[in-house]
């Protein structure tokens, strides 16, 4: 049997995917789990983030998640009890030595920047230790009914930066002159109010979508502007406007369950020597809106990748 007593896994994010990843890793019997998340719990998290309840709103996700799992005293595969250690902080403030102390990293982040940070750190670690350390990085992502799982082994399989080209452009963006002169959609109106009217009116204040007065101003001005152009303003409900300005991505428990499970299954395969870095596919995409579709393939390393290109 594989000895898991020295295995320590770092989980990035304790959100929709993070809760699922933490639960799975605990049930897999990983003795030492660490989780980092700088967010606090909000009401709209509770349709999927099952380690939290309404009483936890405002508290640190990492802390509440760790407390929940530690309280269950789940037996680990090495005979001890699963222990989760929380970090309520920005993960980009972790130093390299800390990151280098883990066996594996699993990520359920929604931020591309944080993933790029970790990816760069891991490549650096493999580079500096001359391949003595090679920490697999399993990256999950979900959006509505869709998701992906990438298995990144620095120096061996495509790194996060190698597959940057497969990312969809971040948010729908409209030509500036369209939103200025010939808006047609409610989104055009909101975009203009947000990117042109707000900075003009409040040159010294950054817009903050979490502040009600800011949102109210955007909603009010958007309705005014829609009327000015004869655009149907009934579409400009609070939910709709918030969705556009905060670029809200729909999220549902079941997709997170599927994607997180996919990531954690990769952990099992790596730990139990079932994963072969030379032949196993490193990329799985999933879509559940029309039947269940999944597709796995090997994304090759980019020879001139700006990040992992230094690892020959």
């Amino acid at each position: 049997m594989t000895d898991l007593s020295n295995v320590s896994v770092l989980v990035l994010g304790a959100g929709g995917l993070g809760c699922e990843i933490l639960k799975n890793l605990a049930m897999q019997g990983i003795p030492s789990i660490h989780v980092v998340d700088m967010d606090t719990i909000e009401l709209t998290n509770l349709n999927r983030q099952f380690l939290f309840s309404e009483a936890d709103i405002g508290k640190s996700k990492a802390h509440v998640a760790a407390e929940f799992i530690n309280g269950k005293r789940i037996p680990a595969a090495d005979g001890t009890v699963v222990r989760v250690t929380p970090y309520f902080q920005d993960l980009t403030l972790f130093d390299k030595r800390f990151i280098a102390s883990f066996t594996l990293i699993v990520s359920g982040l929604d931020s591309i920047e944080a993933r790029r940070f970790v990816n760069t750190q891991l490549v650096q670690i493999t580079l500096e230790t001359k391949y003595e350390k090679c920490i697999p990085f399993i990256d999950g992502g979900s959006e509505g009914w869709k998701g992906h799982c990438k298995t990144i082994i620095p120096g061996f399989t495509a790194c996060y930066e190698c597959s940057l080209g497969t990312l969809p452009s971040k948010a729908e963006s409209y030509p500036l002159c369209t939103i200025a002169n010939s808006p047609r959609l409610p989104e055009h109106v909101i975009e203009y109010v947000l990117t042109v009217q707000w900075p003009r009116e409040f040159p010294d204040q950054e817009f903050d979508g979490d502040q009600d007065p800011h949102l109210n101003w955007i909603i009010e001005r958007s309705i005014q502007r829609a009327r000015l152009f004869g655009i149907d303003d009934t579409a400009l409900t609070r939910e709709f406007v918030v969705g556009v300005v905060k670029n809200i991505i729909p999220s549902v428990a079941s997709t997170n369950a599927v994607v997180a499970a996919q990531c954690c299954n990769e952990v099992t395969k790596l730990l139990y020597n079932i994963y072969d870095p030379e032949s196993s596919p490193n990329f799985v995409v999933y879509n559940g809106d029309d039947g269940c579709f999944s597709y796995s393939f090997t994304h090759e390393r980019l020879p001139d990748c700006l990040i992992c290109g230094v690892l020959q």
Partner: protein
Amino acid sequence: MDKYDRQLRLWDRRGQELLTEARICIVGQSSLGQEVLKNLLLPGASNFTVITEKMQSDQSFFEGGSLMRLNPRASIETVCWDTNQMANKHFWEKFDLVVIVTTYFKILEVLSKVKLPRSLICCTHEFSGYVRFISPHPHFVIESHPQHTTPDLRIMNPWTELKYYLESFDFTLEEDDFSDVPYIVIIYQALLSVKKRGDPVSRDAIKEEIRGMRALVHEGTTGANLYEAERFAHLATAQSEKVPDNLVRCFELLDQAPENGFDQTVQILLKSLKIYLGSDYSDKQLPLSGSIPDMISSTENYNNLKDLYQKKAKEDVKYFSSIVAKSRVHIPDTVINTFCKNTKNLRVVLPSRSLCFRPQATQILSQQQDAPTDLVKLLTDLINKQFKISDADSKNKMDTEKQSNSEMKSESKKFYPVISLIAGIAAQESIKILTHQFVPIENTFVYNGISNQSWTLKL
């Protein structure tokens, strides 16, 4: 903000209501069943009956009250399997969906003989698992939310008001101010020119015509709308009177729908749609959806066009409603509206008809050319795991499980993600089935966690 905000953006209040009200039965108390329950409590499903095979349970993540806090409004009734009571179809009638995760043959045997409502059956074995959708009736979907659709613009055969509007544009290309004309107008005018010359109408002919326009426009203008028109030239030849295949299939299967609840509504709507298509009013065209995509245009031109399409859509709904009214079953306007908006994208799925795999199922599968041999083996193993006939007496099974030592248990830990994955898919399919939004699996999903592959088979 609503607790369910992030999912309402997928299935809206209509879907949420159906999910909240649905009565769901989960047969089996394994980790798989617990995970399915969790995945359905979270989005707000509230009425559950869990049927347990035995009193003691395995080590589970979700114990006691920890499930209830996910949805404090939910009621979860836990009852022990009782063959006398549960071999009767009346026990099952009250459920909208049954999710079967048990591997007790005695229970499965009873379930396979009784008439069940829409059901999902699922099972995992080590790194693999499956989910199967079972129902004697076809499953209709009004709101399939397709990712890509071709807009229905009727450029080829515009109704009078649209034709009048499209022809109101004076196309003197050498004159400058042309950049605010939406591509619907441009494509229509190109179509007219091609027809006028007596050339055969084709996508390429329209494209050629638009390219010709571009050469003529005032220098210095970007002609972005002309590029856009060229890109969408295929819309000129879209055959709006051709009933799409998915709808043809709905018509074919409509008589197999049961005559109650949602299915009765769908049946009436589909029958009315047939009458509608045969009427003089429709001229063989489906009701217009009324929405047009965004396109380069001045606000005014776009608003005018949008108004025309919306007005026509409203008229179509009105006429369609008058047909529906003849059925004497009251169908709310909102349902009729949603139906008319989605007629192009109506979908039907044929679930598997019986709980047990037909004995020859794997045989049929192995004869299919593209079925990989490992898939056949995988599915055979899964079926054997769930329907283990040698294990007919559940008492024996319990004893074997008791004997399993701690080492065995710790070995099985590594397969937990696969349980979690199959439970995720089972919950996802449950939501799609209960909300009648998005398209469920047709009808058996098989997953291999070693190769990360999956297949969907019609069994």
